């Protein structure tokens, strides 16, 4: 039974989760918005809150860019029985020429929904190799070990810094990629986490190294790629790097007599030329520590242009903003939470919350924020803010939120503004400013927005008042339970009285039963007509006494005489006389000593006596 209930609950929860699931949401980001010719960049289209696969284009046609689909990955997360999934579709972009390219919005069909990706901009610079005649700042390193048979030009490792921009603004986030490669024939034993050092800028923590096998200039390399971002702290000309790194590698030991053949189809990489095949037991590898160093990359940092809007707080990049407020119906002074989300690419760490475009009539509380990054280094993502505001008066809308940033691609400041949010505010204004009626326009507005004169508090009280010694609730105080003794005593008294009454009632009933029983016995004897006169009159008078006592509960039978019986039964004079004679005869026969009184009682006398007794009721 319990299992059924559990299963039912789970199914209900799952059904609710499915029914109430958020609609699918799509985002598209470039791993770098700036790149040089010959370098690749990734386009990642991520669809959240979906379990259905999407129909995506295999290739995206943009003149000057080669964009190819490279794969997809799925992520599922379960939190508090809420399952959310996201699918990421990856494309590799290889620029063919320099310039600024727009990757158009793509329509992706997910289940029954058609989702649109945002338009993305990719700036492609000239390849440094085109001018430097090589791979930019890539520096071959690691001299061939002595006796290895390799010549000095044959390097076994390299390091390079890839910086998409040569000039930036103060505070702008610049993505940097550090690549360290080792010839595939070497075996890497130890490589410390590299660091990028320099003056005038801050460097974010490097991402985990990504290991790939690449062919560069016809040579096969194992390349470790680290991503990070830097942010210039002041204007000036700086150098990024160089990055210096030490690594321990195992290098193939070659025989000095082995020379490259004039026609080598494997270009020296012939696996069968390995010494293992000529000297299998002579030792194959030897360990060497090599220094790897990249070239520094120059960076020109410019100050931000003048004319920043008032709401600019240092955000640089490209952003969009959404906002919503809840609850929509409040009382004056009640808090309203405005949730604002700023998404895009830039320096989220310097981003402050958007502000109300008009704060008159509102009280603000410090906002809280949360950042969800979409990449490894936190350049792109969504920063969510929660602003709590409370209206000081009746208002119909929450003013639009404003947020300003500097767009380095457009070289100008941009101010985003949300829509005004309609609300209903009930109740009276918290403190009615007396100047509101007299002042007009801007004067009144400034009075409202500025500091209001505090209303004065009421006077001191000179008497201390009733003294108490506890804040404890009444039912937790001993006095309360002690006071219950009074009704408890009353109840116990009532209970005792009730028991006594019951017992008394029982006694009376027992006495009546006993008297009734005796009376019945005597009447039976009297009716049998066998008794001697003395016994007969004695029993007859006793029956009268018992009947009188049964009628009057408070009379003892032995105390009843003829007068008492006549009074209790309201006998007429004739019956009263007969009653007296009955009692007199009984006393006479009982106390005169005249024997049993045989012959003194006729049958008429018996009958009359019996009739008198039975007439008593």
């Amino acid at each position, binding site marked *: 039974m319990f299992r059924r209930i559990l299963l039912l609950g789970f199914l209900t929860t799952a059904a609710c989760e499915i029914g109430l699931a958020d609609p699918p949401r799509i985002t598209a980001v470039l791993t770098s918005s700036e790149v040089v010719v010959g370098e690749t960049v990734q386009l990642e289209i991520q669809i959240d809150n979906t379990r259905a696969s999407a129909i995506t284009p295999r290739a995206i046609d943009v003149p000057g860019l080669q964009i190819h689909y490279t794969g997809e990955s799925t992520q599922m997360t379960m939190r508090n029985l809420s399952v959310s999934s996201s699918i990421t579709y990856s494309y590799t972009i290889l620029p063919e020429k320099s310039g600024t390219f727009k990757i158009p919005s793509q329509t992706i069909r997910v289940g029954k929904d058609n989702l649109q990706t945002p338009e993305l901009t990719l700036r492609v610079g000239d390849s440094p190799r085109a001018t430097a005649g090589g791979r930019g700042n890539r520096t071959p390193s690691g001299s061939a070990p002595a006796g290895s048979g390799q010549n000095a030009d044959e390097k076994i490792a390299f390091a390079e810094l890839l910086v998409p921009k040569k000039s930036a603004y103060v505070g702008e986030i610049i993505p940097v990629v550090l690549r360290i490669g080792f010839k595939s024939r070497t075996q890497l034993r130890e490589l410390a986490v590299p660091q990028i050092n320099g003056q005038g800028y801050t460097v974010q923590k490097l991402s985990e190294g990504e290991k790939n096998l690449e062919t560069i200039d016809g040579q096969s390399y194992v390349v470790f790629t680290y991503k990070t971002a830097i942010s210039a702290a002041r204007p000036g000309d700086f150098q990024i790097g160089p990055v210096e790194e030490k690594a321990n590698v195992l290098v193939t030991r070659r025989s000095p007599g082995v020379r490259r053949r004039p026609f080598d189809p494997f270009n020296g990489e012939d696996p069968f030329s390995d010494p293992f095949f000529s000297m299998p037991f002579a030792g194959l590898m030897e360990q060497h520590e090599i220094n790897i160093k990249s070239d520094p990359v120059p960076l020109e940092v410019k100050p931000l242009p003048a004319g920043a809007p008032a709401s600019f707080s240092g955000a640089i990049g490209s952003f969009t903003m959404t906002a919503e407020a809840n609850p929509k119906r409040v009382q004056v002074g009640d808090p309203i939470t405005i949730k604002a989300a700023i998404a895009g690419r830039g320096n989220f760490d310097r981003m402050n919350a958007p502000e109300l475009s008009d704060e008159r009539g509102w009280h603000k509380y410090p906002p809280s924020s949360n950042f969800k990054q979409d990449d490894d280094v936190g350049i792109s993502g969504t920063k969510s803010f929660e602003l709590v505001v409370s209206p000081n008066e009746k208002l119909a809308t929450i003013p639009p939120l404003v947020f300003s940033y500097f767009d380095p691609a457009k070289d100008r400041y941009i101010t985003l503004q949300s829509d005004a949010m309609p609300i209903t505010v009930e109740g009276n204004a918290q403190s009615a400013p007396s100047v509101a009626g007299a002042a007009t326009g801007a004067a009144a507005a400034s009075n409202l927005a500025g500091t209001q004169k*505090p209303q004065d508090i009421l006077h*001191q*009280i000179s008497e*201390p008042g009733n003294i108490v010694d506890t*804040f404890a609730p009444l*039912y937790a105080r001993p006095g309360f339970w002690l006071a219950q003794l009074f009704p408890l005593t009353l*109840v116990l008294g*009532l209970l005792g009285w009730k028991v006594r009454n019951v017992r008394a009632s029982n006694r009376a009933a027992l006495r009546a039963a006993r008297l009734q029983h005796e009376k019945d016995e005597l009447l039976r004897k009297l009716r049998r007509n066998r008794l001697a006169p003395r016994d007969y009159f004695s029993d007859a008078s006793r029956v009268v006494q018992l009947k009188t006592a049964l009628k009057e509960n408070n009379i003892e039978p032995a105390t009843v005489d003829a007068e008492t019986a006549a009074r209790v039964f309201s006998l007429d004079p004739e019956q009263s006389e007969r009653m007296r004679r009955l009692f007199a005869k009984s006393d006479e026969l009982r106390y005169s000593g005249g024997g049993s009184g045989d012959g003194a009682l006729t049958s008429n006398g018996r009958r009359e006596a019996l009739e008198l007794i039975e007439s008593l009721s």
Partner: protein
Amino acid sequence: MKVPAIFPGAAWRAFLFGLLVLSPAVNAATNDDLFAKANTEFNAGNFKAAITDYGAVVQSGEWSANLFYNLGNAYFRDSDFGRAILNYERALQLDRNHPEADANLRIARDQTHALELAPTPLEKYLNFAGAKSFAILAAILFWGTIILLILRRRKVLWMTIGLLLTASCGLAAYKLESGTRGQDVAIVVEGNVEARVATADSAKSVLALPPGSEVVILQERGDWSYAALPNDLRGWISTKAVEKVRL
């Protein structure tokens, strides 16, 4: 224990008797003097001295609604609005019909824009009486039902109704005591207080709490307290930043 010779015989007993009988009276006289002195200092504008003297009376354990009301006024004049609100709340806890404390509490809240806990629907419904009234009513109904049972047997219907009403009143008293005006209500007395999702200053902020804001302490763990916050939120706040209304 041997009685010192300085208090022989009857003198010792007289001293003990005097200590027993006269001590509370002497204490009360001292507190009255302190209360009057604090009022004088308040009127002279020496608000800090007034706070000290009112505080000394509070420390003695002889409390009154007027004492906390005056102390709240002293804190208000000293621009410590968080503690002013705390003491107005204490005055209202001792006397829920204290109009001066109620009025000044509103003014102090306006000054700081303190956040208030929204009462639950049940609390709103039961607001016509306090927990004390419900406790007394429960006791009366209980004993009345018992007496009815003794005097008039076989009145099952009336007895059931009486016991149900008793239980309802007891439950109402309990709900009021554990609600937003109950024994775990605390007031934020420090500035720049933020409730956080975890017991660390670096943890994400849940809600900024201006001085005088109401919270209900649910659990205390070292320097942090887990509290129910206005707007139906929960979070951890520094224990030293809040003070419970009930002493």
